C-alpha cells in the first residue's frame, strides 16, 4: 500500500429531492474518507445506510448535493476518470442478448481499445473467470454465478487501477464466493485498488484492509480492520500439538491469575463453516462417488 489517495471525499453529501424540489431523504451526510492506492477498502452498513449511494457518487451515476469527491485526482463528474475504473454492480446489468465474447468486446470498444488488444484481453479474462466453455452462449442462459463472473470480467477489460465492486459475493454459492474473494485478493496483489461494499461481514473481514461503516448516511467507524476489531482487554493464545487436560487448565489459570487476569474460555478452536464446506467439497471432488450415511458418521464409497 502507498500513500497515494485513489479516492477522496470531502463533506460529500447527497440529498434526494421530490418533484417539487423539497428534501425527501438525506442519503449521505458530509462523508470524509479516502482510499489509498493498492488497498482493499470495504464499505459496510445496513440497508439504506448510504454505501451504494457513495459508490454511485464516486462513479458519477449520481451528482453530489454538497461537498466533492475525487477519483484518481479527477472530479467524479469528469468522464476521463472512467478510463481507469472497473465497476461491477450488485446485479449484473449486462445485455442478456449478447454472449460472453460479445459482451467483453462491447465494453472494450467503449474504452476505445484497439480490436487486436480487445480480443486478446477478452480471451484472457474469459479464461480467468472460467467461462471458456460457455463463451458463445447468450447471457440469458447464464446462472447468477456465471453472470457475476462475466460481470467481473467486463470490469477488468480496461486493466483498471481502481475496481469498485458492489456486493460482489451476493447471490453466490460458497464456492463462488471463495473464488471471488480469491480473485479480489489477486487484484490487490497486482497493485490495483479495490473498493467493495458488502452485507457479508465475514467476507469483508477476510479480505479488506480498511473499512468504513455507515449508518443512516453518517460515517460511524473508519479505519484498519485489524485495529477496529482488536479487543485490547482480552488476550488470545494458540498452541499446537497439545491435548485438553485438567492439569493444563489449572496451570494456565495460575499463570493468568499471576498476571492479574481471568481465564474465560479453554478448549479446541472450531474452524469456520466456510472452511469446513470447502474442505468437504474438495474431498468430494478428489474422491468421486463418496456419500454421507445418515445412520453413521462415516463416509462410504458407492
Amino acid at each position, binding site marked *: 500500500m502507498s500513500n497515494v489517495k485513489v479516492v477522496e471525499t470531502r463533506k460529500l453529501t447527497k440529498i*434526494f429531492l421530490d418533484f417539487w424540489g423539497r428534501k425527501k431523504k438525506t442519503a449521505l451526510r458530509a462523508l470524509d474518507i479516502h482510499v489509498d492506492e493498492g488497498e482493499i477498502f470495504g464499505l459496510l452498513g445496513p440497508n439504506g445506510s448510504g454505501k451504494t449511494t457513495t459508490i*454511485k457518487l464516486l462513479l458519477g*451515476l449520481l451528482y453530489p448535493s454538497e461537498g466533492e469527491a475525487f477519483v484518481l485526482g479527477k472530479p467524479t463528474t469528469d468522464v476521463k476518470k472512467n478510463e481507469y*475504473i472497473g*465497476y461491477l454492480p450488485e446485479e449484473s*446489468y449486462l*445485455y442478456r442478448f449478447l454472449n460472453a465474447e460479445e459482451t467483453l468486446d*462491447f465494453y472494450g470498444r467503449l474504452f476505445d481499445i484497439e480490436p487486436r488488444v480487445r480480443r486478446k484481453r477478452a480471451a484472457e479474462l474469459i479464461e480467468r473467470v472460467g467461462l471458456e466453455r460457455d463463451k458463445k452462449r447468450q447471457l440469458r442462459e447464464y446462472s447468477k454465478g456465471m453472470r457475476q463472473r462475466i460481470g467481473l470480467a467486463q470490469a477488468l477489460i480496461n486493466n483498471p487501477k481502481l475496481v469498485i465492486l458492489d456486493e460482489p459475493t451476493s447471490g453466490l454459492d460458497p464456492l463462488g464466493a471463495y473464488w471471488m474473494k480469491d480473485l479480489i485478493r489477486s487484484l490487490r496483489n497486482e497493485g490495483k485498488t479495490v473498493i467493495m461494499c458488502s452485507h457479508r461481514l465475514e467476507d469483508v473481514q477476510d479480505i479488506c484492509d480498511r473499512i468504513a461503516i455507515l449508518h443512516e448516511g453518517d460515517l460511524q467507524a473508519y479505519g484498519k480492520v485489524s485495529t477496529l476489531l482488536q479487543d485490547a482487554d482480552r488476550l488470545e493464545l494458540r498452541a499446537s500439538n497439545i491435548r485438553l487436560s485438567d492439569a493444563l487448565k489449572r496451570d494456565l489459570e495460575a499463570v493468568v491469575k499471576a498476571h492479574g487476569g481471568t481465564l474465560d474460555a479453554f478448549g479446541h478452536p472450531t474452524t469456520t463453516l466456510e472452511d469446513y464446506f470447502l474442505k468437504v467439497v474438495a474431498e468430494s471432488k478428489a474422491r468421486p462417488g463418496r456419500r454421507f450415511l445418515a445412520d453413521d458418521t462415516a463416509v462410504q464409497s458407492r
Partner: protein
Amino acid sequence: MNSMNLNLPWAALSLERDPLELFQVLSVGSTLFYLLTVGGLASLCAFLWFLAGGFRKVFALKGFARIAVLLLLALSIPIFLLDIASIVALFRPLFLPADAVISANAPLVPRPGWADFPLALSGLAAILLVSAPFVANLPRLSLRRILAIANLSFKEAIRKRVLYAFTGLLLIVLFGSWFIPSKPTDELRTYVSVVFYAMTVVLILVGALLAASGLPADIRTQSLFLIVTKPVERVEILLGRLIGTMALMTLVLVVLTSAGLMYIIRGVSPDAAEESLKARLPLFGFLEFKNTSSAAKGDNVGREWEYRGYISGPTQSATGIVSPEASWVYPTVPSVLAIRDKVQAEFTFDIYRTTKGFENRGVGIGLVITTRNHDAEAMRRAREKDPSLSPEQIASDHGYFQPAGSVTFFDYATGSVDIPGALFANALKGDPKLPALTVRVTCKESTQYVGMARYDFYFRQDDARAGAQPVRFAVNFFLASFALWLRLLLVISVTLVLSTELSTVISLLMGMVLMMLAHVQEFVRELVEGKSAGGGPLENIKRLIDNSVAAKPLEDTAFNTLIQQSDKVVREVLGALARFLPEVDRLSYYPEYVGNGFAIGGADLACNAILTIFYILPWLLLGFYLLRWREVAGPT
C-alpha cells in the same frame, strides 16, 4: 388534325403547397425565421438556466471562456425580451374587446423586416451560447464508441425479434390484390398507395417504439450504469442509439422498398404498366386568371376543397361578351424541348356542371399557346398571304399554336395535346424579360365551369411516347422511399430525445402526437387563423353540449364572451406552438408523385432533407442536455 388523346390514365398532382426550391430554403427570410424561432427558444432556456443557478458556473469560469459566455448572454438579451413580450402577448386577447382583431390572423412565417436582423443576430448569439458545451464536447467523441452503441442497438432489435413485426406486411402481399381495382387506369396508383401506406405505418410505429424503448429500458434494467461508468460521453449514447436504430430501419426500408417495387412491377397488368409505369418530368408554369372574381383564385363555385379556381364559359356583361380565362405563364423554357419534333402537354381539369349536359360528353375548352415573340397582326398578314401555312410553321415563325378542331376533356381523365417543338425554339428567342410562353385556356360552354390549379397543366420534358419506363419508375419509387426515411429520421430522433427523460409510453405518445399535429398542420393553421367552423376549441365544446349548429353565432352573454376570448388565447398559444411543428405533410406526399407517374423533384427532396436536418439539430441539442443533466441512478 385532332391532336387530342384522351386515353391517358388520370394522372394529376394536387399540390396544395408549392414544391420547395433551394433558394427558398436557403433564403435570408428562412434563415432569419430559423434564427428567431430556435434562437428565441435557446435564449429562453439559457436565461432560465442562468437565473436558476447557472450564474455560479458562469462566474466560476476563467479568462476568455467567462468573457465569451457573458458576451453571448448580453447579446441574447434582446431576443429573450422579445420572448417574454411574446409570451405575455399570448394572453393579450383576454384584455381586448371581443371583436378586436388579434395577431392570430398574421401569417405563421412572417416576412422579415429590418428589425428582424438585429434580433436574428441576438438569436444566433443564444444558439451559439447553448450549443457551446456541445461543440466543446465534440473533440472528445469517439466514433468507435458511437458505433459500438449503434451496433448494440442493432443487435438488440434483431435478437429481441423486433423484425417479426414486419412479417405483418406479408399480409399485404398475400391479400393486397383483393383490394386492388382491375381498372388499368387506377391499378398502379392503388398498388403504390397500398405499399407505401403499409410501409409507413409499420416502419414509423416500429421505429418510434424502438427509439422510445431503448434508453428507458436501459435505465430501468440499469444496463446504462455499466455504460456511463465507462469513458463514454452521454451524447455518444444518444448518437449511438440514433445511428443503430436508423441503420436497422434503413436496412428494413431498403428491403421493403425493393420487395414492394418487385411486387408492384410484377403485379400490375401489362396495360396498366404501359399506361402508368413511368415518371413524368413535368414543366409547370404559374397560373393566373383573367375576367374572374379573383386573379389568383378564379371564380368560387362553392366547392369545399378550394384547391382549384374556376372559369365559366363566355358571359354577357355591360361591355359585351366576356370570356374568363386561365393562363399559365412560363418565364423560361428548357432548350431541350426546342430540338424535339413534338412536345406533349397534359392537363387534368375539374368540371363543375350547372346543367346536366350530355351523357359521355366532356366539356369543350379553348387552348392557345403563344410565345413572347408572338405578333398577332404579323401572323394574320402572313396567313392571308399564304393560307396553307402549317401549324409547325406558324409556331416556328410566329410563336403561336392552337390545336386544330375542338378540345374536349372529361372528369377524372388526363387530356393531352401535341405541341410542335418549333414553338419552344421560338420561345427561346426574344426579350428575356418577357415570359417565354403563355398558355391560355377558356371554357367554351356557357353553362359549365372548368376548375384549374397551377399543377393541372404541364409540358412533358421526358419522352411521352416511351411507354412503360420501369427503371425511371424504380428510381422514383426509391426517392419516395427516401422521403419516408426522412420521416423515420424525424420520428426516431424526436422520440429518442424525449426518451432521455420520459418513460417509453410517454415518449412514444408525445412523439406520435407531435407527428399527428404536424400532419394536420393545415387544420392547426385554420384553427390559429380563426377559420375553423364553429369557432375555437372551447366554443366548439360548448356547442357540442348545447347541441347548437356551428353557423349560428353565440348569444352575447358574459360567459360566451369569456369562452371566445379564451379561445383566442388558445389560438395564440397554438400559433406559437405551430412554429415548432416539423414539415411532415410535405414528406408524406411523395408516394402521390410515384402513384400518379410524376418524377420527384430532386431540389424539392433536397430542400426537405435540409429542413428535416435543421429541425432535428435543436432536438439533438436538447437530448444532449437532458442526458448530461440526468442522474442515471437517480429516482425515476
